């Protein structure tokens, strides 16, 4: 009788223990990260929009800058629609009115606050801003070089390259050109992916 009881107790324990698999710990190791992409809003040169002349024979630098900005935000359809709709010169309040009319959310400054550009860089969006006399360009982020920080600018009159200006000088110049900058509140293009960690032991 005791043998049968033991057998049954063992069978019960076997049933109860079934399925109690331990969670395996996974050990991971960090892999080296590449240098940060510079500029942070690194719109491929093939996608740089060149300035164009509108029906009033004015340059469309604001709209070209915005198209570049929208392309970086992966808003190609919106950018093409904007390009087909608007041209010639533009000023800040009308641009914002048009963005409002198009139901496009944005953030802006008219005080040449460099922290706005810090934020535009940190969020990887970039911005459009008043840069050079009677001109508008696309700010594509701060660039670090030789221990200094430079503003990287995509000038729609000179697509295919980025122009660098030292930060403090850039801020003063930006103020001189009106201090306006604007960022559309959409998610930027994804970063270039790389393997950031690897599994070294799965127990």
């Amino acid at each position, binding site marked *: 009788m005791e043998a*049968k*009881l033991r057998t*049954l107790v063992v*069978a*019960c324990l076997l*049933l109860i223990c*079934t*399925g109690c*698999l331990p*969670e*395996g710990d996974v050990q*991971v190791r960090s892999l080296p990260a*590449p*240098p940060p*992409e510079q500029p942070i809003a*690194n719109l*491929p040169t*093939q996608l740089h929009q060149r*300035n164009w002349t509108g029906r009033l024979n004015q340059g469309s630098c*604001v709209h070209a800058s915005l198209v570049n900005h929208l392309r970086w935000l*992966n808003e*190609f359809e919106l950018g093409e629609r904007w390009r087909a709709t608007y041209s*010639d010169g533009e000023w800040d*309040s*009308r641009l*914002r009115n048009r963005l409002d009319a198009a139901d496009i959310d944005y*953030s*802006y*400054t008219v*005080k*040449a606050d*460099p*922290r706005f550009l*810090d*934020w535009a*860089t*940190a*969020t990887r969006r970039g911005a459009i801003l008043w840069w*050079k006399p*009677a*001109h*508008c360009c696309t700010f594509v982020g701060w660039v670090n070089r030789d221990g200094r920080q430079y503003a*990287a600018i995509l000038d729609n009159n000179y697509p295919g*390259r*980025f*122009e*660098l*200006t030292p930060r403090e000088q850039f801020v*003063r110049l930006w*103020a*001189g050109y009106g*201090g306006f900058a604007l960022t559309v*509140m959409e*998610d930027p*293009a994804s*970063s*270039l*992916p790389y*393997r*950031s960690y690897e599994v070294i032991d799965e127990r």
Partner: protein
Amino acid sequence: MKDEIRIRLSVGLIVVAVLHAVMLGAVFTALHRTPAANTSDSWRLPPARPTSEVGSRIQQLPQPSRVNLEAQGELKQQSGYCPPCPPNTIPAAEPHRIVQPYRVVPTAPTVPAPIIVTPASSSTRPVTPPEQAKNRYQIALFVASDAKSQRLLDWFNTDPNLVKLKSKCAFQVYTESNALYRTRYADIVPANQFPVVLFQDSTGGHVHAAGHTMLPSTARELFDDLRHGYELYQQTRQAQRTGALKTRGYSWDAAISPTMQLSSEDCPDGYCPIEPVDNTWRPFDRDRDGDRDRLFDRDSSGRNALIWAGAGELATLALIFVAVLLLGFILIKRGL
């Protein structure tokens, strides 16, 4: 004779119990499928590679010292198109190329009082080094026109967990014909691996990557895979921050003063370039910033506690319970 029959029944019962145990073990093992971490030989993310420098020449231009209100509201219409332009030169404003600007009267008083531009930091260094200020996660879907791709898109539009996760991350969808895909990602994410889910930090460091055959069959499994990748990633990286979106047409100037210390509540999408300056933070210090910064809910579907068991686990436990009841009933009937 009677005892012999009883003994045979007991042995048979044990055999049945063993079979039952084996089957339960198989079911439970299948339910505890752990996402494979980067073991696919068909497609792997590339290792880190150096990036090329941009720009080759530093410009030196004259320096006004304050916001130029006259220039602020003027018509911006420069057209310096001059192909072929000499490389790396400052575009000179040629008089015959420039349409003379004219004064535009704004429809509403949008020009604020003039201020002297005084950066928050008096030094020439940036307010915060950019490498400290990359605090967002990204989800990128690379999809084709097949049913599997469509199902993946549907998951991110309908599954509550994935929708919530998507809202906390920068989210993009790329197709093979997308211009950004062709120019930036085609070499890294081959189109024959579509659909692909990339979950990464703002530097591009992968948190989880799965493509084609490695994609799970349900939204729930994909969410679990993403969370599992996030937990692994968190073992090697510090916690990150996300935030809520501010109102539309956000005016940086109205909300932020020049000397203001920025916090997440002050910035347009809850995310500021300035990080906490103290150095008390340590890796694995996940709860420092509270619930706001947690990408995944802590209690949604953890696997290490009975109360969080999924439906499959609960079914297994119920089967075990029924088996124990059955054995107990037999023992009682036999008078043991």
